[in-house]
């Protein structure tokens, strides 16, 4: 049964044909699993998983002022970003809170290609429509699907279709003809594995999806495993682990703050962010190993060993790769040092937990040796 209030991606029929179990996510009717979350999770870590992420928002920001205008609201330096490269960044409100996290790159010579979260895209596009001024133009690419292939065999699978893709390094991007159509491709993803995200015209999406799936190394992967994979990779999920109240410093995303931008302090929320960098934030996102009992999920309280509640879990669950429970959450910096013993409270029971480093499972991005 389809919930009529949910939107569908152009691959909806393909998911149903594959026997997917569908759920609502980000306003879309999406596949949560095909054969099972654990099997799909492991397949992606060992082979190659194919994900429909067409619910995410895609847009171009173009014009002579595109970069300068885009940069007013993100803390990354996109002026120095080379053509053919992309960069993770954060759309910030005036208080330095994270409206959304995003990928923005220069796949061609026409401004920025930007991918944002499904649940925030309407808000993001409205924000840019209102705030981008001068000669900067937002074009929403709602006539495109987005397909991700992730896993240690992803590169070999894609090289068979287009050899040039093997030459991409992590975070390289390009606009090129792939499967006979005009695509934007980047070597990136949301699983901690090597792989690609491919923006393809909606009319060709099902053909491209089925063509990639013909390879026995590739299986379709639902949102259930996408969530457990990104959790293991230590990647935050907006609306859960980061939101408009959390800053990049609190969210442990200071890598997204370019040195030049911090020096210029010319982006939304710079005052708060620079103050937090200098003095420390009041809370910070940490990784937890939950050493006993049930999985600690979003909303579970985090306590110190004296039983004082000091924070909250923002996402958590079993790690199929590690075979134990892991979580992310926020605590004051005094409790954030690696090795700190804490408790998580699940259904009234306190269970031992320890602050550990993220990613929980090592990322395996393909980084090209420096020439």
């Amino acid at each position, binding site marked *: 049964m389809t919930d009529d209030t949910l939107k569908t991606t152009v691959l909806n029929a393909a998911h149903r044909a594959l026997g997917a179990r569908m759920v609502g996510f980000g306003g879309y009717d999406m596949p949560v699993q095909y054969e099972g979350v654990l099997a799909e999770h492991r397949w992606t870590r060992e082979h190659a998983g194919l994900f429909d992420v067409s619910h995410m928002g895609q847009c171009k920001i173009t014009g002579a002022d595109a970069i300068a205008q885009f940069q007013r609201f993100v803390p990354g330096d996109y002026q120095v970003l080379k053509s053919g490269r992309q960069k993770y960044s954060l759309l910030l409100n005036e208080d330095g809170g994270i409206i959304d996290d995003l990928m923005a790159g220069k796949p061609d010579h026409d401004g920025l290609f930007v991918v944002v979260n499904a649940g925030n895209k309407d808000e993001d596009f409205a924000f840019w429509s209102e705030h981008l001024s001068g000669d900067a133009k937002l074009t929403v690419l709602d006539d495109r699907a987005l397909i991700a292939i992730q896993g240690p065999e992803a590169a070999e699978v894609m090289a068979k279709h287009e050899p040039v893709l093997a030459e991409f390094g992590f975070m390289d991007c390009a606009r090129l003809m792939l499967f006979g159509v005009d695509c934007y491709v980047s070597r990136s993803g949301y699983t901690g594995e090597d792989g690609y995200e491919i923006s393809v015209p909606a009319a060709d999406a099902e053909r491209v999806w089925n063509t990639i799936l013909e390879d026995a190394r590739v299986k379709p992967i639902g949102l259930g495993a996408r969530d457990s994979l990104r959790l293991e990779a230590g990647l935050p999920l907006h609306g859960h682990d980061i939101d408009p109240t959390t800053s990049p410093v609190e969210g442990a995303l200071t890598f997204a703050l370019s040195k030049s931008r911090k020096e210029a302090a010319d982006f939304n929320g710079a005052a708060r962010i620079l103050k937090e960098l200098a003095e420390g934030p009041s809370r910070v996102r940490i990784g937890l190993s939950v050493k006993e009992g049930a999985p600690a*999920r979003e909303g579970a309280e985090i306590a110190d060993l004296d039983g004082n509640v000091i924070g909250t879990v923002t996402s958590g*669950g079993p790690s199929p790769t590690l075979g134990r429970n892991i979580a992310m959450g926020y605590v004051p910096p005094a409790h954030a040092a690696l090795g700190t013993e804490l408790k998580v409270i699940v259904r009234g029971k306190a269970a031992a937990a320890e602050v550990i480093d993220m990613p929980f499972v090592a990322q395996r991005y393909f980084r090209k040796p420096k020439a």
Partner: protein
Amino acid sequence: MHFTKDHEWVRLDGDVATVGISKHAADQLGDVVFVETPEAGKTVGKGDSFAVVESVKAASDVYAPVSGEVIEGNVVLATAPETVNADPEGEGWFAKIKVSDAGQIDGLMDRAAYDAFLASL
């Protein structure tokens, strides 16, 4: 074996009811990664949440299909929660409950009625 609309099952042997979740429920949950079963001695009322079953994605309550006193929780599930998927209506049982009134089971569905109920969902 009898079933509830919440997809629990009960098998009565004398005054001892073995309870668990149906194959349909286990299939819907997907991979079970954690089960919390009640300890012996706990008194449960029909419809009370008496156990928790967790998939990768979420935790779900399991409701007691009968009232009585728990005489045994299935300790196997603590270390092998996947048993719930492998054999939900057998080795994957959750608890044995000494029922206060064997007549409680009369209001539950038999297999044929439960199958018809599933078909109506």
